[in-house]
């Protein structure tokens, strides 16, 4: 990672933290930046649903298999462990974790990942989710990189919750559930676009996102309009 890249990442992230910013686009952008800056192959964010389950909200690549892998972690994997303990989980070599998380490790290795790190997303005493880092090379991230990754996870938390406004646990719950519902709207919109334009899900997401950016629209607003038919892509 170069210092310039790093500075750019933080500036870009800070830049999105204005009023009325787009949470889903922000998280997506953050995962891309994490992968670049930390020098890993892919990154993903899972958030805890108030109902007690982890849900995928963003990934640096919309590659369906990566999303599936993240999804699989809602049953088992480094991410739930990180979430439950509130501490980082490092798996420098996935082959050593076969017994611990057999399904997860098999799927991760099939996609070509050799190591995984998970970092908690914390707001004071609450753990709200986790940031996952996947790499095609085995090996633990060094201490500086971990610290930087945790800083990015913290920024993600702040952005997600617009933390200036979070004084009560109630508001935390309200905003988390709203964000999770936005993710569902985006998935529904991807389906609409995929079917209408004969695209795959990745292409559909790219089209949705680029259209939102070009027209200066919020990703979740545009997605909602696509699903309810008031706009066509």
């Amino acid at each position, binding site marked *: 990672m170069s210092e310039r890249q790093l500075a750019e990442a933080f500036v870009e992230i800070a830049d999105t933290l204005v009023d009325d910013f787009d949470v889903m686009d922000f998280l997506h952008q953050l995962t891309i930046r994490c992968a670049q800056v930390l020098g890993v192959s892919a990154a993903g964010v899972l958030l805890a649903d108030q109902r007690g389950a982890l849900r995928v909200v963003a990934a640096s690549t919309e590659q369906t298999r990566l999303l599936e892998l993240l999804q699989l972690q809602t049953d088992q994997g480094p991410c739930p462990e990180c979430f439950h303990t509130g501490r980082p989980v490092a798996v420098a070599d996935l082959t050593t974790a076969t017994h611990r998380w057999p399904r997860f490790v098999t799927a991760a290795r099939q996609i070509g990942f050799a190591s995984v790190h998970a970092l908690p997303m914390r707001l004071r005493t609450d753990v709200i989710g986790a940031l996952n880092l996947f790499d095609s090379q085995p090996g633990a991230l060094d201490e500086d990189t971990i610290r930087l990754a945790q800083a990015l996870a913290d920024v993600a938390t702040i952005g997600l919750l617009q933390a200036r406004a979070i004084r009560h646990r109630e508001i935390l719950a309200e905003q988390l*559930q709203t964000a999770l519902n936005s993710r*569902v709207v985006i998935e*529904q919109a991807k389906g609409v676009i*995929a079917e209408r334009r004969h695209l795959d899900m990745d292409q559909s997401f790219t089209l949705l996102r680029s259209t939102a950016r070009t027209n200066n629209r919020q990703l979740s607003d545009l997605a909602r309009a696509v*699903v309810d038919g008031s706009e066509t892509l």
Partner: protein
Amino acid sequence: MSGHDVGADRVVRIWVQVGQQSRGDPVSVAHVCAAAVAGVKVDGAGVTVMVSPTVRETMHATDRVAGELEEWQLTFGQGPCVDAFRGGGPVLAGDLRGADCLARWPVFTPAALDSGARAVFAMPLQVGAIRLGVLDLYRTRPGPLSPHELADALAFADTVGMLLLDGAAGAQPDTAELAWQRDDPTAHQAQVHQATGMILVQLGVNAETAFARLRAYAYAHDRRLGDVARDVVERRLRFKPDPPSGGDNEQ
């Protein structure tokens, strides 16, 4: 907050509570409301549903206060229910005497206090862009829901939402025992929502109908929702518009 196993346990527990209310009869929204009142330890519950994009109406209220809360929100166009419906997340007003509530809902708040409510918790009945309505819970005493109560309240809201969806699709209401066995851990996978979007286009219907049809197909073929959704997303299964008599749509 807790993990997947606890989430699954919660689903079972919620359905047991609903079953205690319905006593073997087909499950109705009234049964779920009664179970929510007992389970979340609130004083009453009400459900407002979308009849059309502009018309909402109260479907059920467990008592006079709950009925009036729904009525005030529909009349004044403001309140936790209105915000939950618009925003997509729960709206939790732990103390209506707080200044923030009065500022946020200047007309609704005094009316709700007059009716006898002190705290109102509104849970949207939503699946992404599908907006079915809102479950409102109230208490006569102030104070927030505990994290555990909030999780249960959201689970009750999910249950009401699924009843509304399946009811709209003409699916037979189940006994609670059958219904919870159907509760499908794959229902939250991304592909389920992607498939909903694809079916919406295939059938030329709205998202609510598309999702109901996907669920109905999974029930009818005794398959998990996530597996059927994957077939749709990978284009092995298409839905075709109904012939006048109905019927299934495999290709």
